[in-house]
């Protein structure tokens, strides 16, 4: 840098770096550096003493009943919600793809819940799912038993909310993926006498696999946002069935238990890092294979 005449390339590189600097400083200050502090805290004895205790805090948290419950419920929610949203949004995208121009209005409709604040329609969901609510009314009319939607069955309410809110986003992404499949492939397959099922499984699904992996990542990211819905509908202390990792974190925030919090954050980070790394790593491998 002390040279008087910087080469054009160096100058260009420096300019680029300076443009990205404000964003990098902001991210470093609010995310990267404090995350380092969080990690260090998770390995320390207590807030007051920074004595290194290794993985002891992790053992404590992993053993605690609250964390076990939260982890179990979170994984259960993931296991049910992810296949549901992927299949549902792919089906809708396939329906819309039959005539994109004519059905464009529906694409817009399906994205709408994404932008809608859940707090603004919370009364609707309360009326529909309360003990004396619409769903139970219909169930009893049909001669079935009413269920406790704000208690034991809250899991399903949360699932419905997640699907209602996020399916549209995935549909738009799936439509973009479907659009990227060259139409010649289908024409060739038609000439060979392939039916729609064969076209779907032999052409469509393999061709959109890289997109699907990304859509899966987005769906996971959005799953973590379900806390908003859970909080707004069911409050600080929901039924055990939806006590998830977010509630674990929030309760520790309220109790000012920062050591447990930092351990929780580190564990969630590890899981996400592994999942996203696995999914996106696979993608890179695929692309490498095609070259």
């Amino acid at each position: 840098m002390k040279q008087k005449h910087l080469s054009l390339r160096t100058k260009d590189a420096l300019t680029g770096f300076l443009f990205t600097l404000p964003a990098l400083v902001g991210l470093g200050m609010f995310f990267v550096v404090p995350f380092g502090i969080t990690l260090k805290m998770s390995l320390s004895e207590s807030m007051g003493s920074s004595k290194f205790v290794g993985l002891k805090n992790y053992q404590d948290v992993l053993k605690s009943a609250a964390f076990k419950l939260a982890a179990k419920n979170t994984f259960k929610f993931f296991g049910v919600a992810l296949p549901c949203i992927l299949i549902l949004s792919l089906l809708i995208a396939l329906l819309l793809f039959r005539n994109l121009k004519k059905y464009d209005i529906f694409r817009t409709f399906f994205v709408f819940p994404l932008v809608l604040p859940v707090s603004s329609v919370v009364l609707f969901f309360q009326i529909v799912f309360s003990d004396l609510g619409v769903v139970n009314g219909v169930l009893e009319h049909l001669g079935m038993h009413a269920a406790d939607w704000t208690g034991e069955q809250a899991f399903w309410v949360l699932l419905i909310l997640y699907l209602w809110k996020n399916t549209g986003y995935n549909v738009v992404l799936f439509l973009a993926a479907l659009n990227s499949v060259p139409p010649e492939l289908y024409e060739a397959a038609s000439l060979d006498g392939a039916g729609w099922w064969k076209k779907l499984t032999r052409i469509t699904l393999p061709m959109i696999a890289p997109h699907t992996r990304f859509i899966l990542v987005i769906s996971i990211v959005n799953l973590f946002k379900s806390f908003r819905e859970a909080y707004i509908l069911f409050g600080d202390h929901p039924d055990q069935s939806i006590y998830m990792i977010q509630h674990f974190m929030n309760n520790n925030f309220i109790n000012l238990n920062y050591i447990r919090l930092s351990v929780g954050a580190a564990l969630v980070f590890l899981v996400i890092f592994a999942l996203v790394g696995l999914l996106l790593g696979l993608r890179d491998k695929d692309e490498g294979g095609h070259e």
Partner: protein
Amino acid sequence: MAKRRKTGDLITLIVLILMSVVVILPVLFMVTHSFMSGNELTASYGKILSSSKDDEDDTPIEIDAHLIPREPSLKGYWDVFLATPDYLGKFWLSLGLCAAITAGQTLLACLGGYGFAKFKYPGKNLLFALMVLLMMLPLQVTLVPNYIVLDKLNMIGSYSAIILPGICSAFGVFLLTQTFKSIPDSVLEAARLDGANQFKTLLLVVIPQAKAGIASLVILNFIDTWNMVEQPLVFLKDRLKYPLSIFLSQIKNADLSRAFVCGILAMLPVLLLFLHFKDALMTGIENSALK
């Protein structure tokens, strides 16, 4: 064959219309209910929404869910918009927070996106990858690190605690990097040959070409901020300072006609933005996919 196709289209259309109704029903419900009188709402839903769970008696009580107001009334609107300043106060507070965060992030993202998309410097790709990782992290991971910094800066409890981390989010930089990449380098070369410096190139050439991308960032960011729940809960401690997004879930039982109108108040800005910028939003979602 043609006939089969036609029946298929009809069924598709019916399925799509039914799904749209389900998607839009909560909004419709809120809108019609906001025009019902307090008496009508209490008579229909009082059993679920007003009474606490403790005084349950075993007599079956029907609630009376209906969409069309029987006693149309504007009292709720009068109360919320004209009679008391509380609700509008929260509304402007939320709007102010959103404006500050969105403006700040858009500025940071324009600079950063330009640097990442149009320059080369050593380590750039690594930094970009780090940013993508940060973008994927859910709030449950980043809240703790955020809290530590804000605590050190003595900002907990003030609105800067919400605004600053909101501005420094990785999503905007990522989205605009994707957008700016699609602008051909030749356009930039031409501007530079005309003697424009980098800032001028960004301001007069790049940004005007990326209007759709920037619009999509603005709307996605605004929506996200408007709907935020976790940050104010954790960073603001004081309930009186809560923005509209959380405030709403706390007034629901006080006065039903007001509660419904407040729901409308909360969805109004995003509804208008959505109707006006829906195409930009769709492009934004498509661009948010990793390519």
